[in-house]
Protein backbone atom coordinates (compact mmCIF):
# COMPACT_ATOMS: atom_id res chain seq x y z
CA UNK A 1 0.00 0.00 0.00
CA UNK A 2 2.84 2.32 0.86
CA UNK A 3 3.79 2.46 -2.80
CA UNK A 4 0.74 4.55 -3.61
CA UNK A 5 1.93 7.50 -1.59
CA UNK A 6 5.61 7.10 -0.92
CA UNK A 7 7.66 6.91 -4.05
CA UNK A 8 9.83 4.02 -5.12
CA UNK A 9 12.18 3.60 -8.04
CA UNK A 10 12.68 6.69 -10.16
CA UNK A 11 10.37 8.96 -8.14
CA UNK A 12 12.13 7.86 -4.98
CA UNK A 13 15.50 9.02 -6.30
CA UNK A 14 13.98 12.24 -7.56
CA UNK A 15 12.79 12.95 -4.02
CA UNK A 16 16.27 12.32 -2.64
CA UNK A 17 17.79 14.47 -5.37
CA UNK A 18 15.45 17.35 -4.50
CA UNK A 19 16.35 17.13 -0.83
CA UNK A 20 20.07 16.86 -1.50
CA UNK A 21 19.98 19.95 -3.70
CA UNK A 22 18.15 21.76 -0.88
CA UNK A 23 20.72 20.65 1.69
CA UNK A 24 23.61 21.70 -0.56
CA UNK A 25 22.16 25.14 -1.24
CA UNK A 26 21.60 25.68 2.47
CA UNK A 27 25.13 24.45 3.26
CA UNK A 28 26.84 26.57 0.63
CA UNK A 29 27.27 29.83 2.61
CA UNK A 30 28.86 27.92 5.48
CA UNK A 31 31.09 25.89 3.19
CA UNK A 32 32.30 29.09 1.57
CA UNK A 33 33.01 30.67 4.95
CA UNK A 34 34.96 27.58 5.95
CA UNK A 35 36.99 27.63 2.73
CA UNK A 36 37.71 31.33 3.22
CA UNK A 37 38.96 30.60 6.72
CA UNK A 38 41.58 28.19 5.33
CA UNK A 39 43.14 30.25 2.54
CA UNK A 40 45.30 33.36 2.38
CA UNK A 41 44.04 36.90 2.06
CA UNK A 42 45.69 37.08 -1.37
CA UNK A 43 43.58 34.19 -2.64
CA UNK A 44 40.38 35.91 -1.53
CA UNK A 45 41.04 39.38 -2.88
CA UNK A 46 41.76 37.93 -6.32
CA UNK A 47 38.25 36.80 -7.21
CA UNK A 48 37.03 34.25 -7.74
CA UNK A 49 38.31 32.66 -4.54
CA UNK A 50 38.90 28.89 -4.54
CA UNK A 51 35.97 26.62 -3.64
CA UNK A 52 38.11 24.00 -1.92
CA UNK A 53 39.92 24.44 1.42
CA UNK A 54 43.51 25.67 1.45
CA UNK A 55 46.35 24.98 3.86
CA UNK A 56 46.09 28.04 6.11
CA UNK A 57 43.61 26.53 8.59
CA UNK A 58 45.92 26.56 11.61
CA UNK A 59 47.44 29.91 10.75
CA UNK A 60 44.15 31.72 10.37
CA UNK A 61 42.46 30.22 13.40
CA UNK A 62 45.50 30.81 15.59
CA UNK A 63 45.70 34.36 14.32
CA UNK A 64 42.01 34.89 15.14
CA UNK A 65 42.05 33.24 18.56
CA UNK A 66 45.25 34.83 19.81
CA UNK A 67 45.22 38.25 18.18
CA UNK A 68 41.93 38.86 16.39
CA UNK A 69 41.46 42.35 14.99
CA UNK A 70 40.43 44.51 17.96
CA UNK A 71 40.53 41.84 20.65
CA UNK A 72 41.54 38.16 20.72
CA UNK A 73 38.65 35.98 19.62
CA UNK A 74 39.39 33.59 22.49
CA UNK A 75 38.35 36.36 24.91
CA UNK A 76 35.19 37.05 22.90
CA UNK A 77 34.33 33.34 22.98
CA UNK A 78 34.69 33.40 26.74
CA UNK A 79 32.43 36.46 26.99
CA UNK A 80 29.80 34.77 24.86
CA UNK A 81 30.00 31.62 26.94
CA UNK A 82 29.55 33.52 30.19
CA UNK A 83 26.67 35.53 28.76
CA UNK A 84 24.86 32.49 27.29
CA UNK A 85 25.29 30.39 30.42
CA UNK A 86 24.31 33.32 32.64
CA UNK A 87 21.11 33.96 30.70
CA UNK A 88 20.14 30.28 30.53
CA UNK A 89 20.97 29.57 34.16
CA UNK A 90 19.52 32.81 35.54
CA UNK A 91 16.27 32.58 33.65
CA UNK A 92 15.73 28.96 34.64
CA UNK A 93 16.40 29.60 38.34
CA UNK A 94 14.15 32.63 38.75
CA UNK A 95 11.43 31.00 36.64
CA UNK A 96 11.45 27.74 38.60
CA UNK A 97 11.10 29.67 41.87
CA UNK A 98 8.33 31.99 40.75
CA UNK A 99 6.38 29.26 38.95
CA UNK A 100 6.56 27.17 42.13
CA UNK A 101 5.19 30.07 44.19
CA UNK A 102 2.41 30.84 41.72
CA UNK A 103 1.25 27.23 41.40
CA UNK A 104 1.69 25.93 44.94
CA UNK A 105 0.76 28.90 47.15
CA UNK A 106 -2.12 31.31 47.61
CA UNK A 107 -0.80 34.69 48.57
CA UNK A 108 -2.01 38.26 48.16
CA UNK A 109 -0.96 39.72 44.83
CA UNK A 110 -0.57 36.31 43.23
CA UNK A 111 -2.86 37.13 40.29
CA UNK A 112 -1.17 40.51 39.90
CA UNK A 113 2.30 38.94 39.80
CA UNK A 114 1.05 36.48 37.25
CA UNK A 115 -0.22 39.20 34.94
CA UNK A 116 2.83 41.41 35.44
CA UNK A 117 5.05 38.54 34.37
CA UNK A 118 2.67 37.75 31.53
CA UNK A 119 3.04 41.29 30.15
CA UNK A 120 6.77 40.83 29.62
CA UNK A 121 5.99 38.23 26.97
CA UNK A 122 4.90 41.09 24.78
CA UNK A 123 7.98 43.29 24.65
CA UNK A 124 11.32 42.12 23.29
CA UNK A 125 14.43 44.01 24.37
CA UNK A 126 14.76 45.44 20.85
CA UNK A 127 11.75 47.65 21.50
CA UNK A 128 12.92 49.24 24.74
CA UNK A 129 16.62 49.59 24.02
CA UNK A 130 17.15 53.28 24.81
CA UNK A 131 15.60 53.36 28.32
CA UNK A 132 17.05 49.95 29.21
CA UNK A 133 20.45 51.24 28.15
CA UNK A 134 19.98 54.23 30.47
CA UNK A 135 19.12 51.93 33.39
CA UNK A 136 22.25 49.87 32.80
CA UNK A 137 24.37 53.00 32.44
CA UNK A 138 22.86 54.37 35.66
CA UNK A 139 23.90 51.24 37.54
CA UNK A 140 27.41 51.50 36.08
CA UNK A 141 26.88 48.14 34.39
CA UNK A 142 28.12 49.05 30.91
CA UNK A 143 30.89 46.70 29.79
CA UNK A 144 30.03 44.16 32.46
CA UNK A 145 28.64 40.64 32.46
CA UNK A 146 25.72 41.59 34.67
CA UNK A 147 24.81 44.33 32.19
CA UNK A 148 24.87 41.75 29.40
CA UNK A 149 22.84 39.19 31.29
CA UNK A 150 20.18 40.81 33.50
CA UNK A 151 18.02 42.69 30.96
CA UNK A 152 17.70 39.51 28.90
CA UNK A 153 16.53 37.48 31.89
CA UNK A 154 13.46 39.66 32.35
CA UNK A 155 11.05 37.58 30.31
CA UNK A 156 8.26 35.20 31.06
CA UNK A 157 8.48 32.29 28.64
CA UNK A 158 10.28 30.01 31.06
CA UNK A 159 7.93 30.88 33.93
CA UNK A 160 4.96 29.88 31.82
CA UNK A 161 6.56 26.68 30.73
CA UNK A 162 7.26 25.59 34.31
CA UNK A 163 3.82 26.71 35.43
CA UNK A 164 2.25 24.52 32.76
CA UNK A 165 4.40 21.59 33.74
CA UNK A 166 3.77 21.97 37.48
CA UNK A 167 0.03 21.94 36.83
CA UNK A 168 0.38 18.43 35.40
CA UNK A 169 2.22 17.08 38.47
CA UNK A 170 -0.25 14.82 40.34
CA UNK A 171 -1.60 16.22 43.61
CA UNK A 172 -1.04 12.81 45.25
CA UNK A 173 2.70 13.50 45.22
CA UNK A 174 2.23 16.77 47.07
CA UNK A 175 -0.10 15.10 49.56
CA UNK A 176 2.30 12.24 50.16
CA UNK A 177 5.12 14.70 50.74
CA UNK A 178 3.02 16.62 53.23
CA UNK A 179 2.01 13.46 55.06
CA UNK A 180 5.70 12.59 55.33
CA UNK A 181 6.23 15.98 56.94
CA UNK A 182 8.17 17.52 54.07
CA UNK A 183 8.02 21.31 53.89
CA UNK A 184 7.48 23.18 50.64
CA UNK A 185 11.19 23.69 49.87
CA UNK A 186 11.91 20.03 50.55
CA UNK A 187 9.10 19.10 48.12
CA UNK A 188 10.52 21.56 45.59
CA UNK A 189 14.07 20.23 45.68
CA UNK A 190 13.42 16.52 46.15
CA UNK A 191 10.37 16.03 43.94
CA UNK A 192 9.53 18.96 41.69
CA UNK A 193 13.00 19.83 40.38
CA UNK A 194 14.01 16.21 39.64
CA UNK A 195 10.68 15.69 37.85
CA UNK A 196 11.29 18.80 35.73
CA UNK A 197 14.76 17.86 34.62
CA UNK A 198 13.86 17.09 31.00
CA UNK A 199 12.00 20.37 30.73
CA UNK A 200 14.91 22.17 32.33
CA UNK A 201 17.39 20.59 29.95
CA UNK A 202 15.27 21.36 26.88
CA UNK A 203 14.83 24.95 27.97
CA UNK A 204 18.53 25.24 28.72
CA UNK A 205 19.39 24.28 25.15
CA UNK A 206 17.01 26.89 23.70
CA UNK A 207 18.12 29.63 26.10
CA UNK A 208 21.79 28.90 25.51
CA UNK A 209 21.34 29.41 21.77
CA UNK A 210 19.21 32.50 22.41
CA UNK A 211 21.85 34.00 24.68
CA UNK A 212 24.80 33.09 22.48
CA UNK A 213 23.21 34.65 19.40
CA UNK A 214 22.32 38.02 20.96
CA UNK A 215 23.50 40.91 18.84
CA UNK A 216 21.84 44.27 19.44
CA UNK A 217 22.18 44.32 23.22
CA UNK A 218 25.93 43.51 23.40
CA UNK A 219 26.45 45.96 20.55
CA UNK A 220 25.01 48.75 22.69
CA UNK A 221 26.57 48.10 26.04
CA UNK A 222 30.02 46.66 25.31
CA UNK A 223 32.07 49.54 24.01
CA UNK A 224 35.27 47.99 25.32
CA UNK A 225 36.53 45.45 22.71
CA UNK A 226 37.69 43.08 25.46
CA UNK A 227 34.03 42.75 26.57
CA UNK A 228 32.65 42.10 23.06
CA UNK A 229 30.81 38.86 22.49
CA UNK A 230 31.87 36.91 19.44
CA UNK A 231 28.61 37.30 17.52
CA UNK A 232 28.64 41.09 17.77
CA UNK A 233 32.43 41.31 17.57
CA UNK A 234 32.58 40.07 13.96
CA UNK A 235 31.07 43.23 12.54
CA UNK A 236 33.55 45.28 14.57
CA UNK A 237 36.39 43.52 12.75
CA UNK A 238 35.53 45.23 9.48
CA UNK A 239 37.53 48.40 8.89
CA UNK A 240 35.55 51.57 8.47
CA UNK A 241 36.10 53.24 5.13
CA UNK A 242 37.66 51.63 2.10
CA UNK A 243 40.37 49.48 3.67
CA UNK A 244 40.35 45.81 2.85
CA UNK A 245 38.88 43.56 5.53
CA UNK A 246 41.02 40.74 6.90
CA UNK A 247 38.72 38.11 5.37
CA UNK A 248 40.46 34.87 6.45
CA UNK A 249 40.50 35.95 10.10
CA UNK A 250 36.93 37.30 9.94
CA UNK A 251 35.66 34.09 8.36
CA UNK A 252 37.53 31.95 10.91
CA UNK A 253 35.81 34.02 13.60
CA UNK A 254 32.41 33.48 11.94
CA UNK A 255 32.96 29.73 11.97
CA UNK A 256 34.01 29.85 15.63
CA UNK A 257 30.94 31.98 16.43
CA UNK A 258 28.50 29.46 15.00
CA UNK A 259 30.24 26.33 16.21
CA UNK A 260 29.01 26.09 19.85
CA UNK A 261 25.27 26.58 19.17
CA UNK A 262 25.42 24.37 16.08
CA UNK A 263 27.08 21.57 18.05
CA UNK A 264 24.43 21.94 20.74
CA UNK A 265 21.66 21.56 18.15
CA UNK A 266 23.26 18.55 16.48
CA UNK A 267 24.19 16.63 19.60
CA UNK A 268 21.15 17.51 21.70
CA UNK A 269 18.68 17.33 18.86
CA UNK A 270 15.92 15.66 20.87
CA UNK A 271 16.11 18.21 23.68
CA UNK A 272 16.42 21.04 21.18
CA UNK A 273 13.27 20.04 19.29
CA UNK A 274 11.39 19.53 22.51
CA UNK A 275 12.48 22.92 23.82
CA UNK A 276 11.54 24.59 20.56
CA UNK A 277 8.07 23.07 20.53
CA UNK A 278 7.55 23.69 24.27
CA UNK A 279 8.57 27.32 24.19
CA UNK A 280 6.17 28.08 21.35
CA UNK A 281 3.17 26.55 23.07
Amino acid at each position, binding site marked *: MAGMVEKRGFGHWLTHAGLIVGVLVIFFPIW*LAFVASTVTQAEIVQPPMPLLPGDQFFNNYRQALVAGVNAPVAAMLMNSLIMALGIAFGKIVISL*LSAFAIVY*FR*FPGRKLFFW*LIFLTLMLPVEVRIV*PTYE*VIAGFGMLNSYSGLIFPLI*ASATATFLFRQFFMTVPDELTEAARVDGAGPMRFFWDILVPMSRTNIAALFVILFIYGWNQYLWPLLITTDPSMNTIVMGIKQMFPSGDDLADWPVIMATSILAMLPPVLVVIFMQKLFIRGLVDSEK
Partner: protein
Amino acid sequence: MEKRVIFKGLWLPLLLVAPQMVITAVFFFYPAGQAIWQSLFIADPFGLKSQFVGLGNFEYLLADPFYRASFLTTAIFSISVTLVSMGVALYLALLADRLIKGSGTYRTLLIWPYAVAPAVAGVLWMFMFNTRVGVVAWYLGVLGYDWNHVLNEAEAMGLVVVASSWGRISYNFLFFLAGLQAIPRSVIEAAAIDGAHFWTRFRTIVWPLLSPVTFFLLVVNIVYAFFETFGVIHTITSGGPQQATTILVYKVYSDGFVGQDLGSSAAQSVILLGLVGLLTIIQFKFIERKVHY
Protein backbone atom coordinates in the same frame (compact mmCIF):
# COMPACT_ATOMS: atom_id res chain seq x y z
CA MET B 1 -6.97 25.82 36.41
CA GLU B 2 -5.86 25.77 40.03
CA LYS B 3 -4.06 23.28 42.23
CA ARG B 4 -6.20 21.53 44.84
CA VAL B 5 -3.32 20.69 47.15
CA ILE B 6 -1.22 23.67 48.13
CA PHE B 7 1.23 24.77 50.80
CA LYS B 8 0.56 27.36 53.48
CA GLY B 9 2.70 30.40 53.89
CA LEU B 10 2.91 34.07 53.08
CA TRP B 11 6.54 35.13 53.23
CA LEU B 12 7.96 32.11 51.48
CA PRO B 13 5.99 32.55 48.23
CA LEU B 14 6.71 36.29 48.24
CA LEU B 15 10.39 35.51 48.66
CA LEU B 16 10.20 33.00 45.80
CA VAL B 17 8.69 35.45 43.32
CA ALA B 18 10.93 38.30 44.50
CA PRO B 19 13.93 37.66 42.17
CA GLN B 20 11.79 37.59 39.07
CA MET B 21 9.71 40.58 40.19
CA VAL B 22 12.76 42.70 40.98
CA ILE B 23 14.46 41.93 37.68
CA THR B 24 11.24 42.46 35.75
CA ALA B 25 10.55 45.75 37.52
CA VAL B 26 14.04 47.17 37.08
CA PHE B 27 14.85 45.94 33.58
CA PHE B 28 11.40 45.75 32.09
CA PHE B 29 8.66 47.86 33.63
CA TYR B 30 10.79 50.85 34.49
CA PRO B 31 12.37 51.08 30.99
CA ALA B 32 9.01 50.46 29.29
CA GLY B 33 7.47 53.21 31.43
CA GLN B 34 10.40 55.48 30.59
CA ALA B 35 9.84 54.84 26.89
CA ILE B 36 6.21 55.96 27.20
CA TRP B 37 7.20 58.96 29.34
CA GLN B 38 10.06 60.07 27.08
CA SER B 39 7.84 59.79 24.04
CA LEU B 40 5.94 62.82 25.37
CA PHE B 41 9.00 65.08 25.53
CA ILE B 42 11.54 66.68 23.25
CA ALA B 43 15.06 66.91 24.68
CA ASP B 44 17.33 69.72 23.58
CA PRO B 45 20.46 68.63 21.68
CA PHE B 46 22.60 68.73 24.81
CA GLY B 47 20.18 66.70 26.89
CA LEU B 48 20.09 69.42 29.53
CA LYS B 49 16.38 70.03 29.63
CA SER B 50 13.36 68.59 27.94
CA GLN B 51 10.06 70.09 26.97
CA PHE B 52 6.68 68.45 27.24
CA VAL B 53 5.09 68.11 23.82
CA GLY B 54 2.23 65.70 24.47
CA LEU B 55 1.63 63.63 21.40
CA GLY B 56 3.84 65.94 19.36
CA ASN B 57 6.46 63.26 18.75
CA PHE B 58 3.82 60.93 17.40
CA GLU B 59 2.30 63.57 15.15
CA TYR B 60 5.72 64.46 13.87
CA LEU B 61 6.59 60.79 13.30
CA LEU B 62 3.44 59.91 11.45
CA ALA B 63 3.91 62.91 9.19
CA ASP B 64 7.57 62.03 8.58
CA PRO B 65 7.98 60.49 5.11
CA PHE B 66 11.04 58.53 6.27
CA TYR B 67 9.06 56.89 9.07
CA ARG B 68 6.18 56.04 6.75
CA ALA B 69 8.67 54.64 4.26
CA SER B 70 10.10 52.52 7.07
CA PHE B 71 6.63 51.03 7.66
CA LEU B 72 6.38 50.06 4.02
CA THR B 73 9.94 48.68 4.06
CA THR B 74 9.10 46.61 7.14
CA ALA B 75 5.95 45.26 5.50
CA ILE B 76 7.75 44.28 2.28
CA PHE B 77 10.66 42.80 4.22
CA SER B 78 8.55 40.78 6.68
CA ILE B 79 6.18 39.41 4.07
CA SER B 80 9.07 38.44 1.80
CA VAL B 81 11.02 36.74 4.60
CA THR B 82 7.90 34.87 5.71
CA LEU B 83 6.98 33.69 2.22
CA VAL B 84 10.51 32.73 1.17
CA SER B 85 11.40 30.85 4.35
CA MET B 86 8.03 29.11 4.62
CA GLY B 87 7.84 28.28 0.92
CA VAL B 88 11.25 26.64 0.76
CA ALA B 89 10.64 24.85 4.08
CA LEU B 90 7.27 23.48 2.94
CA TYR B 91 8.78 22.25 -0.33
CA LEU B 92 11.58 20.41 1.50
CA ALA B 93 9.20 19.06 4.15
CA LEU B 94 6.85 17.68 1.47
CA LEU B 95 9.80 15.91 -0.14
CA ALA B 96 11.08 14.53 3.17
CA ASP B 97 7.59 13.35 4.10
CA ARG B 98 7.46 11.18 0.95
CA LEU B 99 10.38 9.10 2.15
CA ILE B 100 9.66 5.89 4.00
CA LYS B 101 12.89 6.19 5.88
CA GLY B 102 15.66 8.75 5.93
CA SER B 103 13.52 11.79 6.73
CA GLY B 104 15.27 11.89 10.13
CA THR B 105 18.66 12.20 8.45
CA TYR B 106 17.48 15.11 6.33
CA ARG B 107 15.99 16.69 9.41
CA THR B 108 19.38 16.56 11.13
CA LEU B 109 21.03 18.02 8.03
CA LEU B 110 18.50 20.80 7.69
CA ILE B 111 17.80 22.01 11.23
CA TRP B 112 21.20 23.19 12.38
CA PRO B 113 21.32 26.48 10.45
CA TYR B 114 18.70 27.53 13.02
CA ALA B 115 21.58 27.83 15.48
CA VAL B 116 23.51 30.31 13.31
CA ALA B 117 22.95 33.82 14.68
CA PRO B 118 21.23 36.25 12.30
CA ALA B 119 24.27 38.52 12.57
CA VAL B 120 26.60 35.68 11.52
CA ALA B 121 24.24 34.74 8.69
CA GLY B 122 24.47 38.37 7.62
CA VAL B 123 28.26 38.21 7.49
CA LEU B 124 28.19 34.95 5.46
CA TRP B 125 25.81 36.35 2.83
CA MET B 126 27.55 39.68 2.72
CA PHE B 127 30.79 37.80 2.00
CA MET B 128 29.24 35.88 -0.91
CA PHE B 129 27.80 39.02 -2.47
CA ASN B 130 30.59 41.43 -1.55
CA THR B 131 31.19 43.71 -4.50
CA ARG B 132 34.96 43.35 -4.26
CA VAL B 133 35.60 39.73 -3.24
CA GLY B 134 32.21 37.99 -3.28
CA VAL B 135 32.15 34.73 -5.22
CA VAL B 136 28.50 34.92 -6.18
CA ALA B 137 28.81 38.58 -7.16
CA TRP B 138 31.85 37.68 -9.27
CA TYR B 139 30.10 34.84 -11.12
CA LEU B 140 27.08 37.08 -11.67
CA GLY B 141 29.52 39.53 -13.23
CA VAL B 142 30.79 36.79 -15.57
CA LEU B 143 27.19 36.16 -16.59
CA GLY B 144 26.89 39.85 -17.39
CA TYR B 145 24.96 40.96 -14.31
CA ASP B 146 26.53 43.81 -12.42
CA TRP B 147 25.64 43.11 -8.78
CA ASN B 148 25.97 46.00 -6.34
CA HIS B 149 23.79 45.89 -3.25
CA VAL B 150 25.69 48.85 -1.80
CA LEU B 151 24.09 51.14 -4.38
CA ASN B 152 21.08 49.25 -5.68
CA GLU B 153 18.09 49.39 -3.32
CA ALA B 154 16.25 46.38 -4.74
CA GLU B 155 19.37 44.22 -4.57
CA ALA B 156 20.01 45.32 -0.98
CA MET B 157 16.47 44.36 0.00
CA GLY B 158 16.75 41.04 -1.84
CA LEU B 159 19.99 40.21 -0.06
CA VAL B 160 18.73 40.96 3.46
CA VAL B 161 15.55 38.99 2.73
CA VAL B 162 17.48 35.92 1.58
CA ALA B 163 19.98 36.15 4.44
CA SER B 164 17.14 36.48 6.99
CA SER B 165 15.15 33.61 5.46
CA TRP B 166 18.09 31.23 5.25
CA GLY B 167 18.39 30.22 8.92
CA ARG B 168 14.65 30.39 9.33
CA ILE B 169 14.07 27.58 6.82
CA SER B 170 15.25 25.11 9.47
CA TYR B 171 12.66 26.20 11.98
CA ASN B 172 9.79 26.13 9.50
CA PHE B 173 10.93 22.80 8.06
CA LEU B 174 10.84 21.24 11.51
CA PHE B 175 7.27 22.34 12.18
CA PHE B 176 6.01 21.57 8.67
CA LEU B 177 7.51 18.08 8.74
CA ALA B 178 5.97 17.39 12.16
CA GLY B 179 2.63 18.68 10.87
CA LEU B 180 2.80 16.51 7.74
CA GLN B 181 3.73 13.42 9.70
CA ALA B 182 0.77 13.98 12.01
CA ILE B 183 -1.67 13.65 9.10
CA PRO B 184 -3.06 10.10 9.20
CA ARG B 185 -1.60 8.00 6.41
CA SER B 186 -4.91 6.22 5.93
CA VAL B 187 -6.65 9.42 4.78
CA ILE B 188 -4.01 10.08 2.15
CA GLU B 189 -3.93 6.47 1.03
CA ALA B 190 -7.70 6.40 0.70
CA ALA B 191 -7.50 9.40 -1.60
CA ALA B 192 -4.68 7.75 -3.53
CA ILE B 193 -6.83 4.64 -4.06
CA ASP B 194 -9.57 6.88 -5.40
CA GLY B 195 -7.06 8.01 -7.97
CA ALA B 196 -6.18 11.43 -6.53
CA HIS B 197 -2.72 12.48 -7.67
CA PHE B 198 -0.15 14.31 -5.61
CA TRP B 199 -1.42 17.83 -6.34
CA THR B 200 -5.05 16.91 -5.83
CA ARG B 201 -4.19 15.26 -2.52
CA PHE B 202 -2.12 18.25 -1.50
CA ARG B 203 -4.84 20.76 -2.35
CA THR B 204 -7.79 18.91 -0.90
CA ILE B 205 -6.33 17.05 2.09
CA VAL B 206 -2.80 17.99 3.09
CA TRP B 207 -3.04 21.77 2.85
CA PRO B 208 -6.30 22.10 4.84
CA LEU B 209 -5.06 19.71 7.54
CA LEU B 210 -1.77 21.57 7.69
CA SER B 211 -3.43 24.98 8.09
CA PRO B 212 -3.06 25.24 11.91
CA VAL B 213 0.71 24.78 11.54
CA THR B 214 0.78 27.24 8.63
CA PHE B 215 -1.08 29.95 10.56
CA PHE B 216 1.12 29.45 13.58
CA LEU B 217 4.27 29.75 11.47
CA LEU B 218 2.89 32.80 9.69
CA VAL B 219 2.59 34.73 12.96
CA VAL B 220 5.87 33.47 14.41
CA ASN B 221 7.80 34.33 11.25
CA ILE B 222 6.38 37.82 11.04
CA VAL B 223 7.40 38.42 14.65
CA TYR B 224 10.85 37.07 13.78
CA ALA B 225 11.18 39.34 10.73
CA PHE B 226 10.09 42.35 12.79
CA PHE B 227 12.39 41.94 15.77
CA GLU B 228 15.12 39.38 15.33
CA THR B 229 16.59 40.40 12.01
CA PHE B 230 18.38 43.48 13.30
CA GLY B 231 21.72 41.61 13.13
CA VAL B 232 21.27 40.76 9.45
CA ILE B 233 20.48 44.32 8.49
CA HIS B 234 23.18 45.88 10.64
CA THR B 235 25.89 43.59 9.22
CA ILE B 236 24.88 43.71 5.55
CA THR B 237 23.44 47.13 4.75
CA SER B 238 23.24 49.22 7.94
CA GLY B 239 19.78 50.21 6.77
CA GLY B 240 20.97 51.55 3.42
CA PRO B 241 21.21 52.44 0.64
CA GLN B 242 19.12 55.57 1.29
CA GLN B 243 17.21 53.81 4.09
CA ALA B 244 15.98 51.17 1.64
CA THR B 245 16.42 48.45 4.26
CA THR B 246 15.66 50.48 7.41
CA ILE B 247 13.00 48.40 9.11
CA LEU B 248 11.20 49.79 12.19
CA VAL B 249 13.46 48.14 14.77
CA TYR B 250 16.52 49.38 12.94
CA LYS B 251 15.11 52.90 12.95
CA VAL B 252 14.56 52.84 16.73
CA TYR B 253 18.26 52.03 17.01
CA SER B 254 19.54 54.47 14.41
CA ASP B 255 17.41 57.40 15.64
CA GLY B 256 17.98 56.67 19.33
CA PHE B 257 21.67 55.76 19.38
CA VAL B 258 23.16 57.11 16.21
CA GLY B 259 20.91 60.15 15.80
CA GLN B 260 20.45 60.77 19.55
CA ASP B 261 16.81 61.78 18.99
CA LEU B 262 15.48 60.25 22.20
CA GLY B 263 11.92 61.56 22.02
CA SER B 264 11.37 60.24 18.53
CA SER B 265 13.06 56.93 19.30
CA ALA B 266 10.88 56.52 22.39
CA ALA B 267 7.73 57.31 20.41
CA GLN B 268 8.78 54.70 17.87
CA SER B 269 9.27 52.22 20.71
CA VAL B 270 5.74 52.90 21.90
CA ILE B 271 4.32 52.35 18.40
CA LEU B 272 6.27 49.09 18.11
CA LEU B 273 4.97 48.11 21.53
CA GLY B 274 1.45 48.47 20.19
CA LEU B 275 2.34 46.35 17.16
CA VAL B 276 3.84 43.58 19.29
CA GLY B 277 0.76 43.63 21.48
CA LEU B 278 -1.42 43.17 18.42
CA LEU B 279 0.69 40.30 17.10
CA THR B 280 0.69 38.64 20.52
CA ILE B 281 -3.09 38.82 20.73
CA ILE B 282 -3.39 37.28 17.27
CA GLN B 283 -0.97 34.56 18.32
CA PHE B 284 -2.89 33.73 21.50
CA LYS B 285 -6.25 33.76 19.75
CA PHE B 286 -4.85 31.40 17.21
CA ILE B 287 -3.18 29.10 19.72
CA GLU B 288 -6.47 28.74 21.54
CA ARG B 289 -7.97 27.53 18.30
CA LYS B 290 -5.11 25.14 17.79
CA VAL B 291 -5.85 23.55 21.16
CA HIS B 292 -9.45 22.93 20.17
CA TYR B 293 -8.54 21.69 16.76
